[in-house]
Structures are given as C-alpha cells and as structure tokens.
C-alpha cells in the first residue's frame, strides 16, 4: 500500500502524511530489518492457554516470564540488546498453538519459543519449531517429548516429566508390601503417570490391587469409588490433572475414603488447591516443580519470590508460573553465554548451562535436553495449620536433582 502511494505523481498532503504514518508504523513493526540490525531485540515467542480452564496458570506463566525478561533488560540486556516477550493465546488447542507458533516464527521473526501448557499442545508446538529449526523450550509436563520419535536437537524440556514426578512421589509415599489402587484418566498423560507409578511401585516392592481408567473430563467419580473402596488399598493414586483431579479428590473425600487410605497425586497444583479448598485437599500428597515456601531453604527461591512479589502486588509465584521464569531465564542465560541468538551457539550454550534461578541447581541433559532438577513432594495442610492464605503445603521432601531420576538415554531411543 505504501508503495502504491509513493508512486503517485502528485500526492496530496493527506497522502503524504498517511504515507509517513504508514512508514513509521512499518518501521516500528520491524520491517526494514537491515537498518535496525544493531539494536534488534531478542524476541521470545510465548504461546500459552490464556483462555480456557488453565487460564490462571497461563497468566502466572506470563507474569513470571515477563519478570525474567524485565530482569534481563534491567541488567542491560545482551550488551545493550534488549529482550522482548511475544505472548500468544494458544487456547489450549493444538491447532491454534501450531498456527500461532508458525506466525511467531514467520511473521514476528522470533529467535526462540518458550511455552505451552498441555502435553498435546506442546507436541504440536514442537512439530512446528522442529521443522523450522527453531529452539523450543517446553514448560509443560510430558514423557513423549523426550523420546527420540518426537525430540529434535532444537527441543528442550524445562518442565518435569511424569516419570520424574511419579518416581519422587512414590519413593516418599509407597512402602514395601503396601497395597496401591490407581484411578487413571484415560488419555496419554494419564497413562504416562500410571506407567511411572507402576515402575516405582515395583522398585519399592508395593503391590497393585487394581487400576480403574476413567473418561477424560468426567465430572462425577462416585460410580468408580465403591469399586476402589472394595479393593481396600492403603494408597490411592489419582493419575489425572486439573479439573479432573479436583473433582475426583473432592468426591473421594466425600465418600470418606481419606480415612481409609492415603491419597497421592503425581502433581499437586497451587491454584487447584485454592479453588477446591483446604478441607478437601487436607493430607493429599503430590509432586511439584516449585512451591514458594522453598524460600526458607533456597536463596534463589527467595530472590525469585521477592522480585515476583514486588512486581505483582505481593502475590507469590505458583508452580506452573515458575516454569515461565525458569524456562525464559535459562534461555536468556544461554543467549548471554553464546553472545547472540545464533541457533547452534545457543543450543550449545543451553547444553553447557548450569543454572540456579529459582529452585536450586538445574541443567539440561545432553542426550534429550531434559532439565535435570529437584522434584518437591508436598503435603496439603489442614486449614488450622495454615499461617496465611497461601501457606498451602508442607514440603515433605525435596528429591534432589540427579540423572538417576530420569529414564536412561538408551531407554528413550538415543544411541549415544
């Protein structure tokens, strides 16, 4: 449009002004790249499900990621080169996420992508980034993304995976000879969690008394609970997520099952616990990547919490929110180490990176780019024991960072 106008022989004043306006807008949008190459910002694409059931988690992710970017810029960026976060709503939909990611790469010319909050959605993002040789740091739980079929050298996984969380939770809750029943959401993530728990169960020497698969998204679990009760387990492992977890725990409590057995979940969520209430969650044990209460023992957690509180009116960061921080922060540290955004150099820098930004030491394993990190085992507190509104959990154990918690490279299909 701009071209057509400037070719006119006798432009009116209005056309000239309009043309200048458009030209300026185009400059701001970063069209004449050559002229701005010196100060071109580091652009990080950030697809996350702002709308939909995980909206609260997604907003926490954005806040934390923005904090990481702000700290980077406040510290002078990369020799004056600032970073920019381009947040896109993936609507918790794989197709939408793929489209937004493609736009981020092709139109917005991002240098790397961090984000997604669903095992299916992150695989869709990974498809796109992998095909275009774009670095992607996934911050959503998945086992498959580490496996050779879906992985690429551009793929990094900052989040925990079901294998790690179930191993840590089982280690601290299962005992030799204990009877374990499983209630499992019938989809990929549910099955991954079940597989992880059963492996840990075999290692500990506990015994499975039954597995019940439930349809994904079921609102009522009362029809599954009598059968679980009849199995008389010591431990009930509920392998589902989000709303399903909230509903199933609420109803298990309603059926008086918490008095009969210990309820254990692979991942316990800050926001879910708030939404459901203390009485229902009281005593439930689950894994987590982050809990703000770590600040009592870990200096980087204290620093992260304080910065987050200052930026967000005193609110504390949540588990999935923290992924936004650790993911973006590790990327920016690697870019700093690499001295620029050149993909191969950043990949090498990420592989070599040792980072401790919120939860103690972390690093990306060479073969599958899984972030080796600690897994927290949290127990939900009674209302009477809570010191304040966000004093939700007791840190029952911190399973230290280490490769022993991961499946071996060979098991994932990597030869070397």
């Amino acid at each position: 449009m701009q071209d057509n106008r400037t070719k006119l022989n006798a432009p009116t004043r209005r056309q000239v002004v309009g043309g200048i306006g458009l030209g300026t807008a185009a400059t701001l949008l970063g069209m004449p790249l050559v002229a701005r190459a010196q100060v071109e910002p580091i652009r990080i694409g950030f697809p996350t499900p702002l709308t939909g059931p995980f909206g609260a988690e997604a907003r926490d992710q954005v806040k934390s990621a923005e904090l990481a970017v702000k700290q980077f810029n406040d510290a002078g960026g990369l020799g004056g080169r600032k970073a920019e976060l381009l947040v896109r709503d993936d609507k918790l939909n794989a197709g939408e996420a793929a489209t937004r990611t493609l736009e981020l790469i092709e139109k917005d010319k991002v240098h790397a992508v961090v984000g997604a909050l669903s095992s299916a959605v992150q695989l869709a993002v990974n498809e796109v980034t992998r095909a275009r040789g774009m670095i992607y740091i996934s911050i959503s739980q998945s086992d498959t993304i580490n496996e050779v079929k879906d992985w690429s050298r551009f793929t990094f996984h900052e989040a925990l995976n079901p294998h790690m969380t179930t191993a840590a939770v089982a280690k601290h809750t299962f005992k030799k000879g204990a009877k374990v029943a499983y209630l499992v959401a019938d989809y990929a993530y549910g099955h991954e969690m079940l597989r992880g728990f059963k492996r840990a169960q075999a290692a500990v020497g506990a015994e499975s008394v039954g597995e019940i698969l439930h349809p994904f998204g079921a609102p009522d679990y009362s029809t599954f609970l009598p059968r679980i009760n009849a199995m008389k387990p010591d431990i009930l492992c509920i392998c589902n997520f989000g709303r399903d977890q909230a509903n199933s725990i609420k109803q298990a409590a309603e059926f008086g099952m918490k008095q009969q057995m210990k309820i254990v979940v692979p991942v316990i969520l800050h926001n879910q616990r708030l939404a459901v209430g203390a009485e229902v969650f009281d005593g439930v044990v689950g894994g987590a990547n982050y809990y703000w209460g770590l600040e009592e023992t870990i200096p980087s957690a204290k620093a992260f919490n304080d910065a987050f509180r200052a930026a967000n009116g005193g609110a504390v960061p949540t588990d999935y929110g923290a992924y936004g921080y650790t993911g973006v922060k590790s990327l920016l540290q690697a870019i700093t180490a690499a001295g620029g955004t050149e993909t191969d150099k950043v990949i090498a820098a990420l592989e070599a990176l040792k980072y401790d930004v919120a939860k103690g030491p972390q690093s990306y394993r060479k073969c599958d780019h899984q972030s080796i990190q600690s897994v927290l085992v949290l127990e939900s507190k009674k209302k009477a024991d809570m010191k304040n509104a966000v004093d939700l959990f007791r840190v029952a154990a911190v399973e230290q960072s280490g490769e022993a918690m991961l499946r071996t490279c060979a098991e994932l299909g990597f030869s070397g």
Partner: protein
Amino acid sequence: MDVQLIAMQLLSGAVLGAVLVMTALGFTIIFGMLGVVNFAHGALFMIGAYAGVAVAMQTGSFWWALLVAPLAVGALGLLIERFLIRPLYNRPADDPILLTFGLGYVLVEVVRIVFGNDGIPFSTPAALVGVVNLGIGYFPIYRLFVIAVVALILALLWLGLEKTRFGLIVRAGARDPQIMRVLGVDMRRLWFLVFGVGIGLTALGGVLAAPMRNVNPEMGALVLAEAFVVTVIGGLGSIVGAVVAGILVGLVVSLTSLVAPEMATISMFALMALVLLIRPQGLFGRAGA
C-alpha cells in the same frame, strides 16, 4: 463381583440420575412448551452453582443458598425470556438456538471475569458431612439428601401439574398451543413463567451439585450434553420421560463404570443411539411430535 458392590453402584447411579433429572426437566419443559432448544442450559446450571456460592458466602448458610439461588437464577430466566427469547418467537427456529448458544458463552465468560478461571471452593453443609453405613457399604449422607430433595421437587411438580389450574393450562398448552390461544389463554405469559421455572430447576441442580463437584466456569458444559441425551431418550417435551430417562442414564453410566469404567461417559450416548434406532420418538415421546 458381589451384590453389595452392585447395590452401591445402583445407588451412586441413582444420585447421578437425580442431578440429571433436575437439568433435563427444565430443558424438556422449555422445549416442549416454547419450542426453544436452550443451549444456555448448561451455563445456567453453572450460574446456579455460582449463585449458590455467592449466597452461601453472604449468609454463611447452605440452606439459604439452596432456597435463594434457584429463585434468583429463575428470575434471571424470566428476564432472558422477556428480553431475549420473546422477540424471536416469530422468527425461524434457528434464531433462538443461535441466541441461547451465544448466551451460554457470554455467561461463562462473565463468570470467568467475576470469579476467575479456576473455580471456587464450596463445602458440604456441616449437617450433611460424612458417610452412613447402609448395610451395603458407606455412602455419603449428602448424596442421600440430594435424592430426597429431587424426590420432593418431583412430587411438588407433579402436584402442581396435576392438581392446579395452572398445571392444567401447562399440560394443555404443551399439547396444543393453538387451541389454547383460541380459548383465550395468554400463551406468552405461560411461556414466560415456564421458562423461569425451567431455569430455576437447572439452577437448583447446580446448587445441589456444588458440594459434590468443583464449582468452575466449565462445569455446565457436559451438563448440557447430558440434558440433551436424557431429553432425547425420554422423548422431547415429556416430563415423565425426563424423569425416567434421567434415572436410567444414571444407572447405565454407573453399571458401565463397574465393568468398563473408561466407557462410562460414552455409554449414555450409546443408550441414546439405541433408543433412537428402536423408538425414534423417545421412550415417552409422541410419534410425529
């Protein structure tokens, strides 16, 4: 598989069915009388639960919530009929469908904005917490209470429909609105009230479900589908059909959970398909209606 377990499954299924009946009743009455397929029905179920939470927070009492929330949401239903549905009565049947479909989205978004995305805690009333040994196993007291409330509402509805003048008009109006108009009955006023009652019923379902399920903005999504399934199985517009089909669906889902738990949700759709094949008008529907 022992008898006790099957008895527990049947009881669980009956509770499931009771909640289904509350939502399906409103859905089928509104369809039968007004000819409107109310796609906002699930959203209004959710609004009922949130209204219950709001009233319970204000008054500190579940009992007030149980009483006030359905009335308040029923009043909202009256407003919706008066200002949104009524202008569409002489328009093609698609228009009210589009309107209620959109309204459902609007309501969900409004709740997300006001109460947040994640849902909100709602405890079982203190008097009904706990389980009771029924001889077949332990069953939550609250769920027995739900069956009792639904039975009471059904009895009141039956009395209202069978023993009052208003009920007579409703029954006649459902059968032949044109004759009723010729006889000088103001059908618009009737539709207005019926819509309000239908919405009040689904809101009551929402309040009853709130202590059992997590109260969140999407809790009505599956409810709409379930109400639809129950209505189709029972026969469009049939009140008896909605009650029988609601309980039936609850039992089928529950027994499926026992033998093939992962098929629990799909089983109700299979039942619907079966009924459509054998008796397309539904169990209690009139052929050609």
